[in-house]
């Protein structure tokens, strides 16, 4: 799966489950730019897992700060 497709999927998750309106770009930070608190971070993590049918683990999650980081982890998990 292409990065652009993964980003598109994450944008849809953000729209549907986090009420995010507007464009989503790879350089956006989850906490500072998307304004996600703990409940919303959790929602994002689990909805991304549902959508792409992947499981994130702690080691992956420690490294995730931006939307781009999340895209990269999902791509790796999908083995693409």
């Amino acid at each position, binding site marked *: 799966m292409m990065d652009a497709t993964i980003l598109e999927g994450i944008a849809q998750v953000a729209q549907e489950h986090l009420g995010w309106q507007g464009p989503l770009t790879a350089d956006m930070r989850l906490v500072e730019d998307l304004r*996600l608190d703990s409940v919303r971070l959790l929602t994002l993590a689990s909805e991304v897992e549902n959508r792409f049918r992947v499981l994130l683990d702690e080691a992956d999650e420690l490294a*995730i700060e931006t939307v781009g980081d999340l895209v990269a982890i999902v791509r790796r998990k999908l083995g693409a």
Partner: protein
Amino acid sequence: MPDGLPNKTLIDLLERAGRHPEGGIRFLDRAERDRWVGWTEIRERAQGVCGGLRDLGIGHGERVALVFPTGLEFFEALFGTLLAGAVPVPLYPPVRLGRLDEYFRRTARMLEVSGARLVLADARVRRILGEAVAAACPLLGCRTVDEVRRTQDLNIGEAVRVDPSDLGLVQFSSGTTVEPKPVALSHRALVAQVEAINGSWQDTDGHRESGVSWLPLYHDMGLIGCVFSALDRDASLTLLGPEQFVARPALWLRAISRWKATISPAPNFAYALCLTRISDAEMEGVDLSSWHTALNGAEAVSPPVLRAFCERFARWGFRPEALTPVYGLSEAALAVTFSDPSSPFRSVRVERDALAREGLVREAEEGREIVSVGRPLPNFDLEIRDEGGRALPPDRVGRVWIQGPSLMDGYLNAPEATARALRDGWLDTGDLGFLRGGELYLTGRAKDVVILRGRNHAPEEIERSLEGVPGVRTGCAVAVSWMPELPEGNTEGERLVLLVEEARNASPQQLEALPEACREAVLGAVGLAVDEVVVLEPGTLPRTSSGKLRRQEALRLWLAGELQPPEPVTPLRMAGAVARSGLAYARYRWSRNG
């Protein structure tokens, strides 16, 4: 021992429950697969951990920090620690995708303040915890249950003698680095609390109450309210993790239906989350008619949320009389008042001005709606007092003071904070409210605490994250939260508001960017989303004579549209200030209604 107080410990409850094969915990995973573990097995497993803790030299009264997600290991560690005569200190595990630096600082501080000798964690959490443990350096480090557990010779020999007056649990009432408040609860207080709660529903020969909970086990409502109360009745309890609930709120209601649970509590925000994040499809085949007590506590209760929840879930058998607003706090081991579990929630509409300005309760049709949180539990007393400590009559707003068998011993190793909270056997809750018809109605808080999604936060910590934001007057910002009046159908909970004074030399560019910069700073440092930033002229925030910021007074003035700078004011300047604070409020209302 004073008359009527229970002469039992949590260990006595475990021993008794361990002899009843029908009670225990059912763990649910995210695929809704269940695993049942009876109290008997939990007790046996805990003995192995207890033996291991003794081998390590953990002794009577020593603290052991527990950092686990919801699961069997938490129970092995919890009861193993108790059997060893030691004191569990449950702490929260890291949040998914969350910022770790802040988590490390808080956890290290809580470990330090609790004086924990050992940290028990599951293997996954331990990999992450390293830095926090290194900073706090508990003597025996951080270990997993498997490392500690004795696999042979489960006979732990002579049981450690634990007295009901011994410390049974240390709970943090808010996870803060500024002034963490470790609430120290004796076995006696814990047992008194669960007996008081369990007095609200009785098992009979033909019917046994059972619970479902997704609440965190490091929180009093989850641990004391659900786990210990089930233990006391040798009952069964179905658990899912808070992260599972947040990921898919339907799991909570589906579990209640599947196991015909009768009791399940949650904070207000959870009921709101069900409204927005559960689809009809997920509710297929669900029957909520067994659920007779849906407790709602730990944060302010919003009437529109309750009504919307009843309306939406009536189709699946949810009964309005199940909703039961309650009031409690960690310092009382949990619950203080319960509303009548068998009737619909009650509320009163009161004149806003008389309430806000004079603390008087006058009914008014279009007034502010306030929910009753009910009457004190048996053996608890409640008084509304003025600032001078004198008891007030009904329908007058004052500080809520309570007395009862489950009050804390105090804050651990903090005699001054304890002396401020406990006086002559009474606890100053720091909450504001009034009594009417013997029932308590909460109107706000006198204490400085921000409560969001059922969790308490210290305002100092939020304010500190604003230091260094360009254009903010140093040390001149307050963080407050409040439950707005919302139109029907709106399900938001408490709102986090920053009232920030601008620096005298702030540039126009800085001022323009100020609200955004403040939001970003708070999210980055403490992970909280700010709902509103109000920029004020220098000197506007009210202070005490010693110069300390008065947060609740600032909130009151802002809500009343009276937050104004103290300078000699020209009419024009005054009009500007009023317009600005009024505008912020109007903007907020507009954005919510829009």
